[in-house]
C-alpha cells in the first residue's frame, strides 16, 4: 500500500516537473535558504536571477524533482534513478541574497556570487564558487574546491583535491588528504591539513600540517607548522613560531617573538626582529644535516648555546659577529688553532637573558647582527 502511494506520488511529481519549463512555485526573499538534495548530477547555480523565485531545470528525463516551500526555506529533492544515460545537469537560477544548502551525491557544484551563507557538499566532483559574503562550508570527497572571497568563517574539505580560496573574513579550516591548499588573506585563525603544499598569504594564528610538501605563510600572528617533508617559510611572523619538517629548510625572514624550529635535513634561517626586546625571545633551532643561521638584534640580551655535533673537515664551524663573552672560562683546553676549533660555544650577549640554543648535527652555525 505504502509502495503504491509512493509510486503515485512520484508520478505526480514527475508530471509536475515536466509540465513546466522550470519549477518555480515558492517565493524567495532575502535570507531564504535554498536547499537542493540531488541524488545525482552536476549543480549549476546562477545567482543573477531578478525574480523572487528559484527556477530549476534538470536536463535528464530519468530524474524526478520535488519542490517544497517552507518558512524561509525552499527545498528541491530528487530521486536516485536506477540507470542513467548521459549526464545530469541541474540548472538553478536564484537571486543572490539567499543562503544555499546544496548536496549532490554524485557530481560537481558550480555557484556564482552569494550574499548569504553556503553549504555545498558532494560525494565526488569539483566545487567552484564565486564570492560569498556569509559563512561557507564546502565539502567534497574528491575534486577541486575553488572559491572567491568568503566573508565569514570557512570550512573547506576534500579527500583528494586542491583547495583554493581568496580572502576570508573569519576563521578558516582546510582539510585535504592528497591535495594542495592555497589561500589569500585570512582575518582569523587557520587550521590547515594537507597532503601536499600549503600556501597562505596572511592570517592570524596558523596551524598548518602537511604529509609532504612546502608550507609557505606570508604573514601571520602566530605559526605552528609541521611538514612530513618540505620547506617551511614565512616572510613575517608577528608572534611565536613553532615548526618542524622531516626534510627541508625552515626560513623566517622576520620573527617578532620566540622561535622553536627543527629539521632533520635542511637549513634553518631566522631573522629575529622583535617589537619588544623585553618579551620572550628564546630560540631553539635544531638541524640534523644543515646549516643554522640567525640574525639577532644588537641589544638583545641572550645566552647562546651553539653546537655542531659532527664538524665539517677544516671548515669553520661556528661563526659569530658578536663579541664572544664565554659563560665560563676555558678549563685547561688548548685555544683554537689550525688543528682544533671548538664545535660547542656558549656565550652571553648584553649580560645574558633569553636562551638561544642552536644545534646542528652536520653543518655550520652562523650568528649575525641585524
Amino acid at each position, binding site marked *: 500500500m505504502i509502495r503504491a502511494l509512493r509510486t503515485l506520488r512520484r508520478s505526480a511529481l514527475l508530471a509536475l516537473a515536466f509540465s513546466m519549463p522550470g519549477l518555480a512555485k515558492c517565493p524567495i526573499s532575502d535570507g531564504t535558504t535554498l536547499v537542493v538534495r540531488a541524488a545525482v548530477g552536476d549543480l549549476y547555480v546562477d545567482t543573477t536571477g531578478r525574480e523572487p523565485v528559484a527556477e530549476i531545470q534538470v536536463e535528464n528525463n530519468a530524474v524526478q524533482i520535488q519542490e517544497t516551500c517552507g518558512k524561509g526555506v525552499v527545498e528541491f529533492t530528487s530521486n536516485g534513478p536506477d540507470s*542513467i544515460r548521459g549526464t545530469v545537469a541541474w540548472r538553478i537560477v536564484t537571486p543572490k541574497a539567499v543562503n544555499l544548502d546544496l548536496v549532490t551525491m554524485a*557530481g560537481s557544484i558550480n555557484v556564482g556570487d552569494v550574499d548569504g551563507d553556503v553549504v555545498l557538499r558532494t560525494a565526488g566532483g569539483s566545487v567552484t564558487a564565486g564570492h560569498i559574503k556569509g559563512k561557507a562550508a564546502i565539502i567534497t570527497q574528491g575534486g577541486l574546491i575553488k572559491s572567491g572571497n568568503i566573508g565569514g568563517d570557512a570550512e573547506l574539505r576534500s*579527500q583528494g583535491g586542491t583547495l583554493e580560496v581568496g580572502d576570508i573574513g573569519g576563521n578558516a579550516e582546510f582539510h585535504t588528504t*592528497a591535495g594542495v591548499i592555497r589561500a589569500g588573506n585570512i582575518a582569523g585563525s587557520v587550521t590547515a591539513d594537507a597532503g*601536499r603544499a600549503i600556501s597562505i598569504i596572511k592570517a592570524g594564528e596558523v596551524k598548518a600540517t602537511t604529509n609532504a610538501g612546502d608550507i609557505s605563510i606570508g604573514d601571520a600572528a602566530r605559526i605552528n607548522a609541521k611538514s612530513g617533508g618540505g620547506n617551511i617559510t614565512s616572510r613575517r611572523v608577528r608572534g611565536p613560531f613553532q615548526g618542524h619538517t*622531516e*626534510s627541508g629548510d625552515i626560513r623566517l625572514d622576520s620573527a617578532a617573538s620566540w622561535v622553536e624550529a627543527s629539521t632533520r635535513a635542511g637549513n634553518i634561517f631566522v631573522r629575529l626582529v622583535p617589537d619588544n626586546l623585553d618579551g620572550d625571545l628564546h630560540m631553539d633551532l635544531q638541524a640534523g644535516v644543515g646549516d643554522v643561521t640567525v640574525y639577532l638584534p644588537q641589544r638583545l640580551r641572550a645566552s647562546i648555546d651553539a653546537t655542531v655535533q659532527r664538524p*665539517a673537515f677544516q671548515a669553520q664551524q661556528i661563526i659569530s659577529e658578536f663579541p664572544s663573552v664565554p659563560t665560563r672560562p676555558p678549563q685547561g683546553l688548548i685555544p683554537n688553532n689550525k688543528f682544533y676549533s671548538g664545535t660547542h660555544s656558549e656565550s652571553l650577549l648584553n649580560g645574558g637573558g633569553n636562551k638561544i640554543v642552536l644545534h646542528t648535527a652536520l653543518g655550520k652555525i652562523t650568528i649575525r647582527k641585524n
Partner: protein
Amino acid sequence: MNVNCKDYQHQITLLLYNELDERTRGELELHLRECGVCKDAFESERAMHSVLAEDTPSWDVPSDLLLESRKALADALDRMENKRSWWRMPAFSVVFTPMRLLESAALITMGLALGVYVSNQQARVAPPVALNSSANSQSPAIPRNGTISNLQVINADPSTGQVELAGEVSQPLRFHGKIEDDTVRQLLFSALRDANNPGSRLKAVEVLSQKPTDESIEEALINALVYDDDPGVRMRAVEGLKTFANEQHVRAAFMHTLQNDENAGIRIAAIDALLARNAKDPELAQKLTEATKKDDNPYIRTKVLQFVGSTK
C-alpha cells in the same frame, strides 16, 4: 735511469689522462721514442689504463667536474709554489720533488672526482677511493665542507712515519642537469625510493611528471601511484599520468587504484582520468563495473553507470 727519466715517467699518467699541455706532451713523446726504459714504463701504465677504461666504459666525466679538478690541481700547484724554497732544502729535495707532488695531487684530485662522479652515476657500492698524501699537501683530496666519519687508523709504522687511515667522506651534493640526463633521472628515481622522505618523493614525482612520455619515467610514476604510502604522492602521480590513461599499462594502474586505493579522492581522480580518455569502450565498461561494484563512493558508482550507459 737518470733524473730526467723520473720526471718523464711522472708525466706518463698525465699524458694518459690527456692532462698535459702541447709542449710538454711533445717533449714526452719525443723522449719515449728515444728511451727504452721510459717506453716500457709507458706501455705498462697504458696497459693498466686500458684495463681501467674497459671497466668503466660509461664514465664520461662532465666538463665542469674536470674544470673543478683542474682548478683544485692549480690550487695545489700554487701552494707548492709558495713553499718552493722549503722543498729546495737539500734534506727534502729527494723525497718531495715538485713532480712527485704534482703527480700525487693530480692523481688524488682525479681519483676523488672520478669517485664522486661514479658514486652518483651508479647505485652499486663503489670501492673505496685510495688517497695518498705527502707531508706538504694538507689532505687536498678531502673537501673542506666534507664530513669525515668512521675514521680508523689501519696502519701506523713508527719507523717510517707512514699512517694509513680509512673512513667515509660525505659532502653536500648539488647537481644541475636536464631531466633527459641519465644522472638527473637516476637521482630522481633514487628520491622516489626514499621511504623516509615523502616530501622528496612528491617533488620527484612533480618533476618527472613534466616528461611522462619517457617510458622509464612513466614506469616510475606508475610505481609511485601503486606503491607509495603517501596519498599526496599518489595523487600527483595520477595527475602526471592522466593524459596517458588510454595506454594499456597506465589503464591497468588506474584500475588497480580504483580497486585498492583507500583514498576516495584518488579513486575519483583515477575514474575521471579513465573515463575522459576511453570513451565508449565496452570492454572497459565491463571491467569498471566489476571493479567498482563494491565501492562505497556514490560518485564513482554513478560515473561508471553513466559510462556503461554511454557504451550501449
